[in-house]
């Protein structure tokens, strides 16, 4: 049995099947972007183990094709297993070994990037300072314990957990959070605007005067969903404090008291806090003379890191990102007649993998072809002699 498994994972046929499946997946995923948008298509086709049909809105779903994670993982296993099984050290095979090692690093780097890289954005108006970036594609329910004088303790519950509809029981909270309603995308209206007969889904806070209407999820690249949920706060010693509506459309956090402490709750874009802050000093948007065609975007920012005693001005512009503490700040866009800049913040622990892999593969190919060239030249010289 074990022998069959090893044979399967070390077979060349599996490599061919994976490469063919990868090509088919890329083709289908590219076409799907027309209707789903790039983000949703990436999620469903490439950042998944399986591609499902129908995707949502039906009571059933069946897997119809392996997803990007599965194909990539099998290909990586296939490559490593084959290399491990057939590895025999010889100088004349150095080029082959290097080339394969480069490919393994490339595939593993791709997998690590997909799993551990975090992309977020920092939006700054002139003079703004922020010590966090936000992921516009992911929301979180922030439950904030304000009891401490200096620090707020934030329990950030990802939207994906709310979506499951289960009751959340976490060690950091003296209460449970029961998700009574969840809307992946919604429109909020006051009850008077919504018309007669519409009931609120919450009985506490401003949500008690608001009607929530479910709307289809957006697939446009420049739009995002407005998720909403009704959550009931259930103290662990029994009872209920009521039901609150949470949505980032409500803006500021709502407050309540539980267990002698003041709490704040807010649905907001997922935040990634940093031990340093960034202040926008100036944003420049140059255009080619007489046209509206952009020539250059640049953000002059001040980076301040009290821990490392860093305080310096940095100019971020196209192809010249700021790299600091494992994060890279790219100039990504602007808003509000050039008054605000948008920086893309990328944390990718394996960002060097493609560079290293390319160098190793190139070195491997050079060595391999070099060995053949030298051998060929020797044979020719011998024949001539």
């Amino acid at each position, binding site marked *: 049995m*074990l*022998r069959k*498994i*090893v044979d399967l*994972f*070390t077979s060349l046929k599996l490599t061919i099947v994976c490469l063919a499946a990868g090509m088919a997946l890329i083709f289908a995923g590219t076409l799907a972007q027309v209707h789903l948008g790039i983000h949703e298509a990436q999620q469903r086709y490439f950042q998944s*183990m399986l591609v499902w049909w129908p995707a949502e809105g039906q009571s059933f779903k069946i897997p119809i094709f392996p997803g990007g994670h*599965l194909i*990539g*993982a099998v290909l*990586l*296993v296939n490559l*490593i*297993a084959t290399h*491990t*099984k057939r590895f025999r050290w010889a100088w004349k095979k150095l080029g082959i070994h290097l080339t394969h090692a480069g490919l393994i690093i490339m595939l593993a780097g791709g*997998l*690590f990037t997909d*799993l*551990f890289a975090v992309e977020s954005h920092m939006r700054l108006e002139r*003079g*703004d*300072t922020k*010590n*966090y970036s936000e992921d516009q594609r992911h929301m979180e329910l922030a439950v904030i314990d*304000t009891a*401490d*004088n*200096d*620090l*707020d*303790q*934030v*329990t*950030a*519950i*990802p939207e*994906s*957990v709310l979506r499951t509809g289960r009751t*959340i029981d976490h060690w*950091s909270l003296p209460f449970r959070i029961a998700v009574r309603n969840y809307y992946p995308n919604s429109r909020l209206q*006051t*009850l*008077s*605007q919504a018309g007669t007969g519409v009931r609120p889904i919450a*009985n506490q806070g*401003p949500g*008690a*005067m608001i009607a929530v209407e479910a709307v289809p999820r957006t697939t446009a690249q420049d739009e995002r969903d407005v998720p909403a949920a009704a959550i009931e706060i259930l103290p662990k010693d029994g009872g209920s404090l009521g039901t609150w509506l949470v949505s980032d459309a*409500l*803006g*500021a956090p*709502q407050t309540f008291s539980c267990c002698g402490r003041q709490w704040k709750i807010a649905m907001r874009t997922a935040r990634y*806090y940093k031990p340093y*802050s960034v*202040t926008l000093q100036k944003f420049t948007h140059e255009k080619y003379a007489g046209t509206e065609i952009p020539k250059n975007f640049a953000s002059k920012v001040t980076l*301040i890191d*009290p821990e490392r*005693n860093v*305080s310096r001005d940095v100019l971020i512009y196209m192809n010249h990102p700021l790299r600091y503490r494992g994060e890279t700040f790219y100039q990504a866009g602007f808003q509000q007649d050039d008054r605000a800049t948008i920086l893309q913040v990328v944390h990718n622990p394996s960002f060097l993998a493609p560079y290293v892999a390319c160098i190793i593969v190139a070195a491997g190919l050079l060595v391999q072809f070099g060995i053949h060239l030298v051998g060929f030249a020797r044979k020719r010289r011998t024949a001539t002699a």
Partner: protein
Amino acid sequence: MPHRRSTEIIWMKIRVVFLSLVVAALAACDNKSEIKVYRVSKAPLEEEAPGQQNAIPANAPSPSMPGGMAPTTTTASVRVPPNWEPQPLSQMRQASFLVKGDKGAIADISFVSLGASAGNVLENVNRWLSQIGQPPIDEQKLNQIAQKLSTSIGDVTVVDLVGLPNDADPNKDGRIIAATTTNGTSTLFFKIRGNATLTESQKSEFIKWLSAVCNAQITNKPAQSEAMLPPSGNPQIKWQAPSGWSEVPPSSMRYASFSAGANENKIDISVITFPGEGGSDADNVNRWRQQIGLPPMTPASIATQVSELKSPDTTFSVVDMAGANARTLAAWTRRDGHVWFIKATGPNTAVEKEKSNFVKFIQSVRF
């Protein structure tokens, strides 16, 4: 030899299976579904260290710079010691200076004006202590070390703090002399931070300067109603807030928010407006009753509980509801296609104490 060969094959198989499992586990990993817990500073916006003019924590309220408090009007007329070198201003700083001493010693002087909710004195003093690596203190200790300075806008609390954070340069750090005061619409911060000896030598000049800046504020202080103007685009009303109430930043659902009292006796006062009728009176009153643990009432019974209160431009309906632990005073009116709700909620005794202020507040509302 055959035995050695079979052992190699077994080890090779184990390696292949182990690697397969590792890759499969990584591929199945989903780190975006974890509940995370972290702690963030709630300190108000202010600078961090000498020479770091814009070092401000971003998870704090937006800076407030009330009209009439621009640097040119508040500090330009105040005499500044000649050895204080003016520094470029940031959005946060209304005045900024650098003093240079012997052997590279420096001290940084700043004046910052923030909104009324920029933390209490103890919170700010403990934040300054943490900046120089010192442990926090309690209210009793604060009363021992704080000095009061009388100015035309009220008492200013002054503290003199000594400490050197780990790895800090003693030429640039080691002492903070800071002063703060609140005038209802804004909180003023004055700070000198730098080399301990140099800071000590500048103390008397610093105190004179901050007194002069405070005294200069009184002629430039905006009227209460101007400082509370809501964002453009909304219907606008004006009022006269009672002296004991402090305005807090409103949420997007609130037109304005106030708080009165402290700690267990704190009450929350909200002003909310919606287009349209805003539901029936009975529905609204029963919702408020439910929030403080009271059972619902019939519309006829509610009508008997509602009284009228006149303001110069309109008549408010008012209801007073008291539960076992909390009490709510609510007033509402409908005008020009909008409904306005003004509500005060808090502990029974605290609300009773503020009831007369609440009535005065309603009576002062002008459309």
